[in-house]
């Protein structure tokens, strides 16, 4: 390989790496204690916490609805948080390209807890772990709703209305 080509390759891969990392800034890998903290906010913001994975087809189909809600209601103290359940060993190949392709700016947490039976009861005791599932929380209004099914945009909007109305 010619030296100039080698340099070009280096520069290209550096750019590629930079673009990858800039898209992964809103992604962190967490364990159960952090999830429990996320699920117990202490402010008056409405949290829409969506449990999903890239391998789950209905999750992928409803994903944009949550992004749209986040964009429309972001100014009204609505915060969409994604709890991702992709396999930890392969998330760099599954999750990161997805987040990049969908231009995800919302906070994404990859929950790295392999033993589901040790944590799903703590989200909701009746939950069997099936995704998609979404937790709606407004601490100030003392509202907490856990719904384990897919949402279309209209249903999502209707569900958050009581949490954000004054």
């Amino acid at each position, binding site marked *: 390989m010619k030296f100039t080509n080698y340099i070009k390759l280096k520069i290209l891969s550096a750019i590629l790496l930079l673009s990858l990392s800039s898209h992964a800034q809103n992604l962190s890998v967490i364990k159960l204690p952090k999830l429990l903290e996320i699920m117990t906010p202490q402010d008056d913001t409405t949290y829409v916490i969506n449990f999903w994975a890239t391998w*789950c087809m209905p999750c992928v*189909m*409803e994903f944009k609805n949550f992004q749209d809600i986040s964009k429309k209601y972001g100014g009204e103290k609505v915060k969409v948080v994604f709890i991702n359940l992709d*396999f930890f*060993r392969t998330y760099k190949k599954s999750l990161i390209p997805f987040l990049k392709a969908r231009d995800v700016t919302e906070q994404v947490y990859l929950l790295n807890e392999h033993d*589901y039976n040790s944590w799903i*009861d703590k989200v909701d005791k009746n939950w*069997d772990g*099936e995704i998609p599932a979404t937790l709606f929380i407004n601490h100030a209004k003392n509202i907490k709703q856990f719904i384990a099914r897919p949402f279309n945009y209209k249903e999502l909007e209707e569900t958050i209305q009581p949490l954000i109305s004054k």
Partner: protein
Amino acid sequence: MKHLSKIVLILIAVSTVALQSFAPATSSYKIGDAVANFSLKNVNGKMVSLSDYKSKRGLIVVFTCNHCPFAKKYQDRINELNKKYMMRGFPVVAISANDAQAVPEDSYGEMISRAKEKKYSFPYLYDESQVVATAFGAVKTPHAFVLLNQPGTGNFILEYAGAIDDNCDEPEKVQNKYVENAVNALLEGKQVAVTETKSIGCGIKWKNK
């Protein structure tokens, strides 16, 4: 272009509905219940019934499927389970109940290919009507049920229901082998310590009822 995006939207809407899980309304077996006989078509075209196993000490029934990433990660482990326990009188029977209309990868033809490709050492049955999955109360793939052949009565009693083990992604890091622990206890004539866990995986794809 407008037409195309409309078609895509309609397709997305249709497939969303098709992929939703509709939980069956009928009740399911509880631990200690006798399981009713069933008869389903194996990938070799022959029928397999629970009553075929009356000379065995028990049976490990695993509801699974082709497409689900969790089920795929357990394919080899289910094969190992059968190899380990078949000789000790506790073979494996796998059943796929997914609606092949919703997930073509789970069709009977695809099941035949998968069984060949992965050299399944156990029957892989097609529960097309979803009656058996409904009777068991299976909700996920994979979802395991350990049955004990009750001496004298010929009844198969449900002794364990739930996950195969506690680590789908990393088999080498498994700490609790729920199914193996249950079978080992039964082989020693002991009570099963953990009789129920929540099964982890993809929801069974029910036909719209």
